[in-house]
């Protein structure tokens, strides 16, 4: 049965975050007065990395259950981790934990025990910064991810297959990404094929399509290309999406089109579910 490999220090898995950092990511995202897409996305990615680190924390030690890659594409295609990890395309989660670019203090609303909410300062580690500029070299970016996952899979032939979490807000400016996208989904370990999930975000508030099982309602060939590049959700992931209140019927793919901020949060939560399989 695929996607059943135990994730352990001797048998880790890999998460690759592929983030569109093109100029349009500076546009507003969500309701009026909301921030930029790139700010929102970098916050969600930083929060997701934080959660992956916490899941690997055993008392004072971090166990390397995961390898992490964050690739950004816009003006160029490059590793997006900042600070000491700048330039590294793949790091073990322990290295990530010990090297955030900085730790900010942010306010978090928590229950006050009397039915209300109070703001409490929390530490918020930052690994990637909000970046926007340039075009959308999606083919080059996908090829970079394929290269690093090929190497990772050859070193971990029996690991839980790598997961690619691809977020974009626009069409590729360097060609048709279908072939390279599908070649990533074809990468295998003995536990199954790589999982490629794609979240397309939009500043428009209408027309959101989440986790479709077919391409019938997708508006154009661009949307259909992204759909066919994305993997069918394994059953446990599909059930997770349903438990979150999302409609994800059998055969649903890990694909969101015209996603809003809530879609982005759900997308990274569902996509990092292998982290819970230990």
């Amino acid at each position: 049965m695929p996607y059943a490999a135990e994730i352990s220090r001797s048998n880790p898995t890999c998460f690759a975050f592929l983030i569109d950092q093109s100029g349009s990511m500076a546009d507003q995202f969500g309701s009026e007065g909301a921030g930029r897409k790139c700010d929102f996305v970098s916050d969600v990615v930083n929060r997701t990395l934080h959660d992956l680190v916490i899941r690997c924390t055993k008392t004072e030690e971090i166990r390397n259950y995961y390898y992490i890659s964050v690739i950004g594409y816009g003006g160029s295609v490059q590793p997006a981790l900042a600070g000491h990890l700048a330039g590294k395309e793949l790091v073990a989660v322990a290295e990530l934990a010990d090297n955030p670019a900085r730790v900010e203090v942010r306010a978090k609303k928590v229950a006050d025990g009397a039915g209300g909410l109070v703001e409490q300062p929390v530490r918020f580690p930052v690994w990637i910064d909000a970046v926007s500029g340039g075009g959308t070299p999606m083919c080059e970016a996908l090829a970079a991810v394929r290269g690093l996952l090929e190497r990772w899979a050859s070193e971990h032939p029996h690991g839980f297959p790598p997961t690619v979490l691809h977020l974009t807000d626009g069409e590729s400016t360097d060609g048709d990404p279908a072939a390279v996208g599908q070649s990533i989904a074809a990468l295998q370990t003995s536990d199954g094929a790589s999982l490629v999930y794609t979240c397309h975000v939009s500043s428009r508030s209408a027309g959101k399509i989440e986790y479709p099982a077919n391409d019938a309602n997708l508006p154009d060939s661009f949307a259909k290309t992204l759909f066919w590049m994305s993997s069918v959700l394994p059953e446990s992931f599909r059930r997770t999406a349903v438990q979150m209140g999302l409609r994800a019927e059998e055969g649903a793919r890990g694909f969101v089109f015209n996603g809003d901020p809530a879609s982005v949060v759900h997308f990274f939560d569902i996509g990092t579910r292998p982290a819970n399989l230990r």
Partner: protein
Amino acid sequence: MTRLEVHSYLTHKLGNEPADCEDALCFNRENGCFAVADGATEAFDSGYWARILTRAWVRWPCTTAGELVALAALLAGRIDRRWQRKALPWYAEEKARHGAFAAFIGLQLSFRGDAVEWHAISAGDCCLIQLRNDDLVNAFPLSSPDDFGFRPVLLPSRDVGVATGATLRFDSGFARRGDRFLLLSDSVAQWFLRSYGAGVRDCNYFEGLLAKGLVEELDIFFDGMRASAAMKNDDIAVLRIAW
């Protein structure tokens, strides 16, 4: 309580080190008290929490919610002090803030003439199984292998209070001469109930090895079960009490 025959078995998850084991067991033959706990893997320092819970409970057994909550609150201070003295990295500090969690089961036996009266207290999915000849006469708090895996409510080291007490479960009964009790952490309990229900009787073989104290054979048996996925790869804690 010297009439009691007690055997124990504790082992770590395949692929981990012995020191990584987050299951714990302890017993006090003098007062007839037995305890098994399973520290939650996702939480902070849960193996230590499981160990101090079992040690404390068999020394100061409590079979009411109020008493157990008070004992847990007392022990929680110990786990907090263990870490407050140290400068922790951000991730450990955050995890420590949420505290430790453990499933727990405690069993207290009292002789009543030629019978034994038993009382059990439970949090989460560690199980008590009472056997008579080849029959399973009681399984507490879970009695079906399908009951496992639903994020049980565990005993926390933070915010131990009335809400914690409300999640505890209690059972009691009598045992006849020749009855055996097993206290089991979750994965071995689930496997035992599945094996018993299917009539496979691997569970009889396991109990036989345990009763003879054949630890190496138990290691081989459980390594095989876990490697073949017949049992979830997890830590294992077992106490067997017979009289």
